[in-house]
């Protein structure tokens, strides 16, 4: 305790250098923690988004691509699945439910998904949680639209507001379906998944607003008026959809059905298991993650070497101080321990400050991650293994301090009561 108090006072005396050293270590720790936390949070966010889905079926494409555009709104589909193939999947004996999705339209940069009531009934996220409504209800009228939590929050929408849907994706669209105004029937409760960033209309409505469109262009004089479309609602069945999420009666059937669908002769389909495809995605991104980790580790090492430099530089200036301590009864090991304590305090302060910076940065970065990936990430306490790594860094800080500590130990033995150079 005495030594700690002395170390503390000594550090206070050199507060500018010490603060700079602590900040250097803190920034390196912050980078390390942020890389890990963001990686973990984003991965968990992706898993949370597809927790209840056994298979995703789309047109023949790369599995990762199908997963990204069907669930996360990243990238674009290259082809569709015919309605007959979708019905084949939906009517399969192993299948408990399906959620068909049609993509291609947007509103103010947010994705519009055509789907059915099955989406609100069967979609699961997080720990098998069902979707809930913050306000309102699912589709009733043909031109009802349900908006995700973030869409409503960002655009200030509430139930009853009327909106127009744009043809195509992106913020700016030259073609609006403004002849088919939609009314917001419900706002979904927050999920922390891409659901929050989407708008949902019925497949019939999706078909209604696209009747008379060909090649992405509305042909004048064709199409359905809204009231006309309402009357023909039961007949508004799409020719094709983008993909379908599939839930099975029993998970044991998933491999068989996947193989069956991938081998489906009448139409080239791709059926993927979301969890396994995510693993493939992590393998692709894993190299970049490893590089980031190595960079972060190198930055931490640089921070510790910076501390070593500071301790070594001040060692000469402090020989008189050590001689005074020795003359007043301090043992050489206590002088050495003083330096190790100082390094320990600097390292621990750097680690604590670094974690706080990381947490603060994650809070600041959360909106960007939400906007970009639709994933709600937030600060969380480091996991046990991350705490272990931080503990090892603290230990490394102490080991680094052994170099100046050993030098101080030797010098105090030779200096005695006066500094010998």
């Amino acid at each position, binding site marked *: 305790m*005495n030594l700690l108090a*002395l170390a503390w*006072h*000594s550090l*206070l*005396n*050199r507060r500018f250098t010490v603060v700079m050293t602590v900040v250097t270590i803190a920034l390196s720790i912050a980078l390390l923690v942020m890389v890990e936390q963001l990686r973990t949070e984003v991965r968990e966010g992706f898993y949370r988004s597809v927790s209840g889905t056994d298979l995703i079926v789309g047109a023949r494409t790369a599995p990762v691509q199908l997963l990204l555009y069907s669930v996360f709104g990243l990238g674009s589909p290259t082809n569709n699945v015919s309605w007959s193939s979708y019905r084949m999947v939906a009517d399969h004996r192993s299948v408990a439910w399906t959620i068909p999705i049609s993509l291609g339209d947007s509103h103010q940069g947010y994705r519009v998904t055509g789907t059915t009531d099955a989406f609100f009934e069967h979609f699961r996220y997080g720990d098998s949680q069902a979707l809930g409504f913050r306000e309102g209800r699912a589709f009733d009228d043909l031109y009802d639209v349900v908006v995700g939590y973030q869409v409503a929050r960002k655009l200030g929408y509430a139930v009853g507001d009327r909106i127009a849907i744009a043809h195509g994706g992106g913020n700016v669209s030259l073609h609006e379906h403004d002849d088919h105004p939609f009314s917001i029937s419900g706002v979904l409760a927050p999920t922390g998944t891409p659901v929050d960033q989407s708008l949902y209309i019925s497949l019939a409505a999706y078909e209604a607003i696209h009747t008379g469109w060909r090649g992405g262009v509305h042909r004048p004089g064709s199409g359905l008026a809204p009231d006309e479309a309402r009357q023909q609602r039961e007949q508004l069945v799409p020719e094709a959809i983008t993909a379908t999420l599939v839930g099975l009666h029993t998970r044991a059937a998933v491999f068989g059905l996947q193989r069956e669908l991938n081998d489906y002769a009448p139409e080239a389909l791709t059926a993927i298991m979301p969890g396994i495809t995510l693993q493939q995605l992590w393998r692709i991104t894993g190299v970049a993650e490893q590089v980031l980790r190595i960079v972060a580790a190198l930055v931490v090492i640089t921070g510790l070497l910076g501390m070593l430099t500071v301790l070594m530089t001040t060692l000469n200036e402090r020989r*008189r*101080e050590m001689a*005074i*301590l*020795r*003359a*007043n*009864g*301090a*043992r*050489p*090991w*206590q002088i050495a321990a003083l330096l190790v304590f100082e390094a320990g305090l600097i390292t621990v302060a750097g680690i604590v400050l670094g974690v706080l910076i990381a947490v603060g940065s994650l809070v600041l970065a959360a909106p960007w991650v939400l906007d970009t990936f639709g994933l709600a990430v937030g600060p969380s306490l480091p996991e046990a293994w991350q705490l272990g790594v931080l503990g090892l860094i603290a230990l490394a800080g102490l080991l680094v301090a052994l170099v100046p500590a050993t030098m101080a130990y030797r010098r105090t*033995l*030779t200096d*005695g*009561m*006066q500094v*010998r150079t």
Partner: protein
Amino acid sequence: MPADQLLELRDLRFAWRRDHADVIALDAFSLKAGERVFLYGPSGSGKSTLLALIAGLARPDRGGIRFAGTQLEALRGPARDRFRADHVGVIFQQFNLLPWLDVLGNVILPCRFSRLRAERAGSVQQSARQLLAAMDLDQAMWSRKAGDLSVGQQQRAAAARALIGAPELVLADEPTSALDSDRRDAFLGLLFEQVASAGATLLFVSHDTALADRFDRQVSLPEINLAGQAA
């Protein structure tokens, strides 16, 4: 060794490196309990080295140092350190205090390393305050950082530190060399008073012989140090 003898050096030989000539070659030197001894000699005559040997910071290559009944040279390094912490107070020439501690913190420093001195001091804080007051250091200075004090004030605080916990021996290594003559005399007066009050022995090292008459005994190191004579 007579009962009133605190320190006795016999046949002492010491070199900082094995292949170097002896810095100290003393046949005999002793201090009585309560004695105030003035040890003088020019720079480089081995004064500080002798103090390091007496304080147990260095171990003689040959000979013996008997201090209050303990053979110092027989003790291992850590035991000598503990012995020094318990029985010796030190005043340096300058840069005496840790600049990052306040004056009180500096004075109680030896009690951080010696339980015996802390016990002897009783209330360490109280004892430090009494010593600082006795050394005529204004109370307003006690909580100041040592680096903010003048050299004279620092020397008085250093004397208080050397005396806290009543060590048997106070070693003063040219503590007045940075003071003008008025301040030097005042400092010596205060130091003598407190050394007497603590019942300590004072070994005062200096090259300034003008101070010598104020001590009980004067010893010329070049005269007793055979190594110095050889050089």
